[in-house]
């Protein structure tokens, strides 16, 4: 029985099936709302799903100068490691596999999909991909500093005098003492996190690495067919994971006593966070330049997160 429940966790909720469906749904909502904000009708919410299946049906072209194995394997490694990460993030207090990975591990785990894109693009031997690789890596460097500051602030706040990295502890603390979003000391960190999410996901205005108009979608330039579909799916699941991480870190204290209701609320929060930090930014901004992204994250966003860390450290 125990085993069956684990299998359900891994394959259905919040594992493979659910993260796929919910991720694609989030991506669809995102596109739809951006369109509505621009006074367009917009594509149906299922559009990313159609895109995904259509790409599965296309021919997969492996460029003759590419490093074939890396090129074809990278997307799958990225996808699978993302889905594994989804199992470690508590969703509405429900954590499929507790006690296996903490915040810092998650910080590292969510770079694996980005690495998959980088090495996949790198292996495709296109100069566009080369530029994209360089830009993607600069984006990773950009958001990693504020993200660790945010995590440390939360870890300190949840430690209650000590420190913790554990996601369970963060959730537990919030259930006892209220969500961190209501703690004024952590509001700058929450803002920083809201800006980190689109950068990590690669959404406007921080999608310098995959800019389609400038560098032909960078690392994805040579991808077609199923591997491209997998990358697009990873992108969608990343939206789910990052917003779920935000929900767990800052709104983990919502507890109604019923697990399913908590989960539903958490998913609503995920959607709301997507709308705020990805859709809104997408609709109102143009793409930044890569040096602007880096500067923005190492000054403004890191500054916000650092303020939180200082407040958490020195103000009780």
């Amino acid at each position, binding site marked *: 029985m125990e085993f069956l429940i684990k299998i359900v966790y891994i*394959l259905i909720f919040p594992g*493979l099936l659910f993260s796929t469906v919910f991720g694609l749904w989030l991506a669809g909502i995102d596109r739809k709302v951006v369109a509505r904000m621009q006074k367009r009708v917009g594509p149906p919410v299922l559009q990313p799903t159609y895109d995904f299946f259509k790409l599965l049906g296309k021919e997969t072209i492996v460029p003759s100068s590419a490093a074939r194995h890396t090129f074809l394997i990278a997307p799958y490694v990225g996808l699978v490691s993302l889905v*594994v990460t989804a199992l470690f993030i508590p969703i509405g207090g429900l954590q499929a596999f507790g006690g296996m990975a*903490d915040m810092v591990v998650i910080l590292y785990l969510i770079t694996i999909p980005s*690495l998959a894109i980088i090495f996949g693009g790198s292996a495709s031997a296109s100069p566009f991909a080369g530029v994209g690789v360089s830009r993607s890596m600069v984006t990773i460097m950009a958001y990693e500093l504020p993200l660790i500051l945010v995590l440390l602030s939360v870890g300190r706040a949840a430690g209650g005098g000590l420190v913790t990295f554990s996601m369970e502890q963060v959730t537990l603390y919030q259930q006892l003492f209220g969500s961190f979003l209501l703690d004024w000391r952590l509001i700058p960190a929450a803002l920083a996190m809201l800006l980190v999410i689109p950068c990590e996901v690669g959404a406007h205005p921080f999608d*310098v690495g995959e800019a389609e108009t400038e560098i032909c979608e960078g690392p994805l330039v040579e991808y077609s067919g199923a591997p491209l579909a997998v990358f697009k799916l990873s992108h969608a699941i990343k939206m789910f994971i990052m917003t779920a991480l935000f929900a767990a870190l800052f709104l983990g204290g919502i507890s109604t006593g019923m697990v399913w209701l908590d989960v539903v609320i958490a998913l609503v929060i995920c959607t709301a966070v997507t709308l705020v930090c990805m859709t809104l930014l997408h609709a109102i901004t143009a793409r930044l330049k890569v040096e602007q992204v880096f500067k923005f994250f190492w000054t403004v966003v890191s500054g916000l997160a650092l303020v939180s860390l200082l407040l958490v450290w020195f103000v009780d």
Partner: protein
Amino acid sequence: MTYEIFKHFPVLAIMCYFLGAFIVTLAGKRRVLRNVVAGAVMLISLSLLLSLVVPVMVNGEIITYWMGNWEPVEGYAIGIAIEVDALSLFFGLLVAIAVALAGFYSFRYITQDDANGPFFTLFLMLSGGVMGIVLSGDLFNIYVMLEVMTFAAVGLTAFRTWNPNAREAAFKYLVVGSIGSTCVLLGTALVYGQCHTLNLAQISAMLPGNMNPTMIFAFAMLFTGFGCKSFMFPFHPIAADAHGAAPSSVSVLISGVFTKTGVYGIIRVSYFLFRTMGLSSMQTMLVFIGCLSMFVCVTMALNQHDFKRLLAFHSISQIGYILTALGLCSAIGIAGGLYHAINHTLFKGLLFLTAGAVLYATGTTYLDKLGGLARKMPQTAALFLVGAFSISGIPPFNGFASKWMIYQATFEKAAETGSIGYALVTVVCVVTSVLTLASFIKVGQSVFFGQLRPEYENVKETPLSMRIPMWIMAALCFLTGLFPDLMIKYLLGPATAAVLNTARYIDAAMGAGYAEATAYFDSYLAEPVLTFAGTWDPVSWLVLFVIIMCAVTLVSLAGKSGRGAVTLTDDAKHATFFGGEEAQYSHVASGDLFWGFKHNLRGYLGFMSRAHSGVTNDYVVWGVCAMAVITAYCFIFM
């Protein structure tokens, strides 16, 4: 059960290398004979040390061996001691493994060099010197071995005499390295003057209660000296030259093993001899030096255009991690630091060997002249990726496990002391880690991926005899990362306990009750407890990864009927997309990468590359300044 027979193993392990060094010379130009002798010596040493794991690591024995049976008389140790506790054995194992793998790799690797006669003599001298340092229980013996090691390493750095860079690197190494040696000698002499003994155990019993200005000076000297041997900031530039110019298998030793003797020396000096690590000022100093080494070297590495120089700077960056972790003086910090030490030996060894493979196959390690080798050398590329992921701390490889422990240690230290500075140390560690990742993406993109240069069309995969040591290292990288619990239980735990339990070390050498009699130690410390702020279970992660990978594979097999075909031919359709133009050679590599980052930090990066002028005099000045600053700091705060 008694361990009488094991008493002789450590000294045999050292002697094997030295005997081997001379016997190899007798083999002359007979290559097979030479390889057999060298291989046998390295394997014998390794197995001798492995056989000590059970008594020392598991059963907690400390093996003391008095050379010529000159045991201590009336509480004074006159003879030379070999004393192997868990810490010594930990470093000894690390040395023996790295030496064996690098040695087997060299058999084929150095055949390209015409004058390869003296190679194994120097190689085994270096190995013996290093082994002598980590197993010795005598301060002057450590100095002697340090010199043996340094001169062998200088000789090996200049091994490719046709290469002017190698000669220059060796010269720099000789000059700056002698600052370190001089410091160690001076410190040793002062300690001898104070304590009238050179035995480590006895000094550790006598010194800590009796600190006076002379001893503070001696501490500063020993600390700087061993720091120089570990190439900590600001001694790092010579490492870059030396590692870059030496043959790759030697770089493995210099980077993976030689620098570890410096770390080992710092542990012995500050945790055992002077027991200064309890002072918060000393912790601050070591952590500060560690952070500086870490950050400065990783940014320098990002700027490099040579594969091996880049790796060399990363060595020091990783040494920075180790020093930072050791400077925290908490059980988890020490365990994390030691864990990172062994991991660094493995992944850096692997990376240097892949660099050697690239050099062997193409004749260059210059990043701007390489590209697309993954198509010609797929195994080497895979091995490189394992090494790169390990050093950048990508789960589940070993670099992540140890870095994760170091993050915990620094952050817990911050909570414990209430100082936000240590939390910022955690931030520096994470940022360094991501910059490390960036520079290995640079290497990956420049050397193994991207477009294949036309002149490397006929490059071949490295021979099997060179690949086997690399695969072993890659497997070790994976396994040590996968089972941190076992590592802690059998290697790190005992070694950490040894670091924190000076009294046991003293009693083992000088007879039971000696430490207590000096009135400085009241009792044996309890076994160290590692407290983790978070959790990380690599095996479960791997199991989940495999299950989901299987599920994805099954789903994709089930959906095969509707899927598009995978095609790979050599026609216009499969040529690289160039916006419609005909495909041509265009490789984005090395200096072209990370523009946004470089642009924003241009002031800092420019200053750094100007400061690393390459002039020996400058580096000597840096070293002397470091010595002066450390001395002044010690006098002010101790």
